[in-house]
């Protein structure tokens, strides 16, 4: 495919992501430059790893007999932090809701929240993966990843 087309679809795709990724992600993209072309990729991969780990921990913790709400709260807080650092606002909002239910110590509601958070995470993961794939394609075709105006 032509570089222009790729770049255009990249921009369109990025614009369509505004509901999932907020301004923080844009800041991250701005930080990437020629001397560090893999920065966004590294950050996103780190995010995936970290999130899978936290989600696993959360699932385990909620499956216990005696649910330790404090630990769950700590995990959710961490997830909230990392998702807001990368700009995944829907995940972050789901985490905020999760924390409220944690305070209420309601196991069923927490399980539902966890499902919600997982869903949001999977959504944003697919979006990010698609974005990264487009970036790779542009780079492979010899083009430059276009910068967005805010």
């Amino acid at each position, binding site marked *: 495919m032509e570089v222009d087309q790729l770049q255009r679809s990249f921009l369109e795709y990025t614009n369509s992501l505004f509901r999932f990724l907020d301004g923080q992600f844009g800041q991250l993209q701005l930080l990437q430059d020629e001397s560090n072309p893999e920065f966004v990729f590294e*950050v996103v991969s780190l995010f995936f790893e970290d999130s899978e780990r936290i989600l696993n921990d959360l699932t385990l913790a909620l499956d216990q007999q005696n649910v330790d709400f404090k630990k769950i709260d700590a995990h959710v807080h961490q997830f909230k*932090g990392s998702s807001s650092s990368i700009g995944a606002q829907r995940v972050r909002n789901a985490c905020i809701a999760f924390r409220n239910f944690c305070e209420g110590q309601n196991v069923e509601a927490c399980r539902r929240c966890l499902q919600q958070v997982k869903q949001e995470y999977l959504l944003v993961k697919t979006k990010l993966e698609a974005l990264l794939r487009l970036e790779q394609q542009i780079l492979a075709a010899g083009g430059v990843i276009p910068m967005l105006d805010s």
Partner: protein
Amino acid sequence: MSGKIFISKVQNEYKLMIAHNTNQQLLVSGIHNNIRLAFVLLILMIGATVITMCSFVCFIVLAAKREMYLCGALINQMEATQQSERKSMNKSLAFASASHDIRASLAGITGLTEICCHQVTKKEPLRSELMLTNLQQMEACTRDLLGILNSILDTSKIEAGKMQLEEVEFDIEQLLEDVVDLYHPVGMKKGVDVILDPHDGSVMKSTCVKGDRGKLKQILSNLLSNAVKFTSEGHVTVRACARKPRSLRNASNRNNSISCLFCWLFKNESAYSESEVVSSNSQRDMSRRTEYVFEVNDTGKGIPKEKQKSVFENYVQVKETAVGQEGTGLGLGIVQSLVRLMGGEIGIVDKEIGERGTCFRFNVFFSTCEPVSTNDIEANNNGDYISEPIIRIHTIPKTERSQVLLFIQSAERSKVVQNFMQRLGIKVHVVKQHEQLSAALKKIKRKLSLSHHSSSGKSDGNSRSDERASSTRSKEVPLSSLDGVDDILPSPSQKKPNARLFGLVLIVIDTRAGPFRDISRAVAEFRRDLNDNCYSRVVWLDKPDTSNSNFHGLGEDKLPPSDLVISKPFHGSRLYRIIALLPEFGGTQPTRGENVENVQPRNVGSLKTSTSYVASKKSGVNGKSYMYQKSEIEEVGGPNNKKPLTGKKILVADDDPIGRKIATFVASQLGANIFHCENGEEAWKLVCKSLEDGTNIDCILMDCEMPVMDGIEATSRIREAEEIYGVHTPIIALTAHYMGEDIDKMIEAGVDAYLTKPLNKEFFLKAISELTIMRYMIEMLTH
């Protein structure tokens, strides 16, 4: 005969009787007379009483009538007043709602003109000049309309007593700079220089305050626009200084004695305790409030003495000078009301004889954002400044101090900058005309080479350098701040006399001050044979619109990359940044092509500062302030030469791996050495270790919420540890978006600034550089 006797007897009797009768009659008539008199008198008395009573009654009746009449009139009057009040209230309400609509329409017009502008430039960029100017003028007109509407609204709001003051945190220094920069181009067009005078720098210490930023900006803008409007030549200077409110000191003494007096006079225990409570309350309230005095001084036409009082009354413009000037005359009235609302007063200051123009001075009260401990208040007996005893150790001997040469076109600005620098203890030379420039530069070069030669000798070098020092001493301005200077402590550089570092020679040149060819020639000559140990840097002050056009003539490769070009007016943050280039204030020596080892700024580890300077920077969320303008100060060689944070050690504490990665990345892009940790406890341990080793950390980026020990506790522990060593490491708090409450706690724990995550390179750079500059400057100024 008996008849005759009888007749005579009768006659005698008759005579007697008659005599008796006449006596009686006399008596009776006498009595009758008396009775008549008495009767008359009685009647008179009764009459008088009756008349009195009647008149009394009449008076009472009259009075009652009058009272009733007055009552009625009063009631009518009150009704009338109430009615007119209601009318005016309704009028203001109607006005307010109408103005809402007016503002909406004006906003619509502005928006539409903007759209037109865009469309015009997009469709026909080549032929749209005329259309664009028309549209821009329309926009200007709508802006003016909006301004007039706002000032009318403000007046009516103030009259209705409905004006409320906001409470936001803001930075006074930044506000002053913004306002002055706003009016600077307008002034320059008329040939009037608009200068921000840092004065004694007292505002720098308590620059972060809580109050109404918008209103203060309004006041300053109004005064400045008046000053610029009514001045056709000369300058307009804005000055500010911060003081502890005077009443506090006297009041605390007075209150106690008065309350004692009361106690004794009235023998009333409760009165004493009440007044005590009152005085302690007011002390608590006043303890956080500082008085800020602002002055706007111009060299314009001036206001005649008789009119001085009346300019503050609404709608009065000083007529002789208002010919051809616009303005509704509302401004100063609003300004006075706003100043009074903030607890202060505004007035016109008399000038010296021979000086023309007007000087407005006003004071307002704000509460500062720093946590003020009670020790500060008690220790403050006579000082007007919030100062702390600071031990300053000047490790740089006099011959090696930096010098600054100023060649600024505007004489007043030159004087202002010179005074400020001299206050800081910097040696300043001033050149007034371009012919003197080369002579002054030659003199400096000669002195430098002489002192270099004299001190390069080993043992007698020291005595000779003292001699030189004494000859240069006569040139210096004696300042009380230089008292500690004569102590020359052994500095590590004395072990290797060849690698001695000389102070920087900073040359500040205004490119408009003379023919550019001559100036650049003089500077090039100065730089030509400068020996290796003397560093020099030139700062070019340029006009904002020409921007480097002078240098295109020269060719950029002819200017060394360490030179700077400033295209904004030389005051405020630009001035501080230039001062920060000097090694005494934390500047690093510029590279000279070869790999000179990077000189660390003087280790100020032995300084004790117990007030933490807090700069609150709301970046990201409220992004309009603190956008780092790259065009303000450009390195001539381009931004790629030296990474700004090279050699600095920065600690990043964040539990979130992504946040950590981002912060690490940003800081390393700026050239710093990073090491990181995952929670507050590790951070604290690392800091303690570095304090023991003596390897200082230059900056700490502390996340607020972390497991094991959070940022707040870590910060307080670090500050405690630092007190023992007398160090103060700049700590910048990192918060995610919705962490408003934590910010206050972090500030109380002792952070110096806060930024939002993810770390933005430019905000971070700005924060660090400002912290460094401010810290050095405050230490220098608070002797």
